[in-house]
């Protein structure tokens, strides 16, 4: 069984992706043993009517996949009354996680807005998925150049919100393994593996970062789903690390939040 914490629905703005319809996406995930996929929406990057983006996402997740898709709402703290988007994610849609894109929404990790958002998410015991990049900055559309999220303030941020479950996503090399193991020590920080690179990349992460802080993520359908799957063939992890990364850690993450709510 696999829990994929990094999937997107709707349309990438710059080209059609294979499997970018919910039915096709679900079929492929299921075929490869993914039983649960935490899905955000590409619409969350550029749309301003975020409430509607999240409603559509929830409807898509209900309509397709018979429970395989778990909606992860978008929140943009630069929008007026974003707090109500967050409230709806939590109270109306019963979400466990939100996904944020600070580089596409124009705020930094050391801004007051980010502080407020993290505080509000922590108060509601929500998981925050922090996406560092959507594509290689070298091949972006000339009118749409978006830098990778500056992770320099990350240590201070994690220090300030040590209990907040924070998932670092699409991390090519912005946070290296050394810094990641420090972040894992001070905070409740997790790392999703879709962008782990270099030969044996996953193995290198497992050697330096606690294995229970690594989560399976594919960044499907932007990336080929097989990229994340084949990392488990290239890296020799053993059964325990494999199962805990592929599903156990994500289960525990949600379970721990749940048990905090009803002690």
């Amino acid at each position, binding site marked *: 069984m696999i829990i994929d914490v990094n999937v997107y629905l709707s349309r990438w703005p710059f080209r059609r992706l*294979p499997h970018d319809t919910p039915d096709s996406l679900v079929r492929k995930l299921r075929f490869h043993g993914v039983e649960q996929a935490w899905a955000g929406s590409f619409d969350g990057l550029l749309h301003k009517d975020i409430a509607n983006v999240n409603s559509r996402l929830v409807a898509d997740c209900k309509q397709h996949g018979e429970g395989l898709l778990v909606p992860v709402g978008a929140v943009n703290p630069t929008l007026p009354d974003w707090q109500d988007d967050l409230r709806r994610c939590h109270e109306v849609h019963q979400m466990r996680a939100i996904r944020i894109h600070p580089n596409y929404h124009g705020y930094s990790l050391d801004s007051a807005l980010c502080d407020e958002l993290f505080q509000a998410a922590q108060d509601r015991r929500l998981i925050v998925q922090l996406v560092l990049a959507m594509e290689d900055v070298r091949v972006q559309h000339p009118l749409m150049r978006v830098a990778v999220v500056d992770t320099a303030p990350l240590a201070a941020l994690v220090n300030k919100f040590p209990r907040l479950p924070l998932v670092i996503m699409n991390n090519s090399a912005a946070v290296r393994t050394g810094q990641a193991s420090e972040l894992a020590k001070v905070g409740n920080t997790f790392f999703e593996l879709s962008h782990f690179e*270099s030969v044996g990349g996953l193995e290198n992460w497992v050697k330096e970062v606690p294995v*229970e802080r690594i989560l399976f993520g594919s960044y499907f359908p932007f990336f*080929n789903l*097989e990229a994340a799957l084949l990392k488990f063939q290239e890296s020799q992890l*053993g059964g*325990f690390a*494999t199962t805990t990364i592929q599903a156990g850690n994500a289960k525990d993450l949600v379970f721990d939040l*749940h048990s905090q709510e009803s002690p």
Partner: protein
Amino acid sequence: MQSTDRRSFLSTSAAGVVGCVVGAGNSNLAAVADDAPLANAPFRTSEHDAIWDLHCHFSGVTGDTVEQRAAKLLEYADRMYVQRLIFFMGWPWSYTPEPAEFRRQNDQVLGVLQRWPDRLLGFAYLNASFPDESLAEIERCIQNGPMVGVKLWVGRRCNTEDVDPLIRRCGELNALVFQHTYLKITGNLPGESTPQDLAELAARNSKVPLICGHCGADWTLGIRAVRQFPNVSVGISGSDPTAGFVEMAVRELGAERVLYGSDIGGRSFASQLAKVYGADITDAQRTLILGGNLRRMLKPIMDSKGMQQ
């Protein structure tokens, strides 16, 4: 999820991991054994896939010598069932090598070819800023040596006519020409070629097979740039596993002009092979891209050297 579910889940999954860090809290996870089989790898490449990798370097692993590094890289290649690997450039490498420097790096490659003649192939690293010395290096490494192609990196843009004598000589020897290409919106290096530069080269040397390395990385543009030139194949290595790359290449160029390569060790076999395995193409097309095309293109020069495929 109920806590009993969680416990039973852990009891069935508890098994070994060698060398991993188990520590930040969660004592349940500490109960592990050491003898677990490699479980739950849900999608795997197969030993029958006959994978040949166009694009390998000595990076991404540790080792004092390139032999030590190649040995480690071969361990990963074995896990992925990659049969043959083409290496070019030594360790450490340099962007604009003087002739003595590219000769040193080629000597390193020649060393590993000798050690693993059945697994490794080599392309000679050249710098088009030194056409005469590069031509001499073709003689040394290919005509009089075991190498089967050349690698041109970022020494000089390939649209210059000064490159043509090198290309013509490769044509005579049936040696493959691998030209790195990139289209960076952030700006190319001074000597870095674009796929459009390669298209100019291809127009002047229409009989010589050329490989558009990285396909410009922005493959949506790279594929278009070389589409008109049937002597140009595209290498898919060294970029993120963005879905749709191989489908577009097959649609616009035909599967015969698409070559799998990884660009290890900066990249992983996993991410680069996924571009081929994840693509919506036929099995026959996949076989060509994973190695069939490369074997076809290399057959004349390998035959002339008495090398087995």
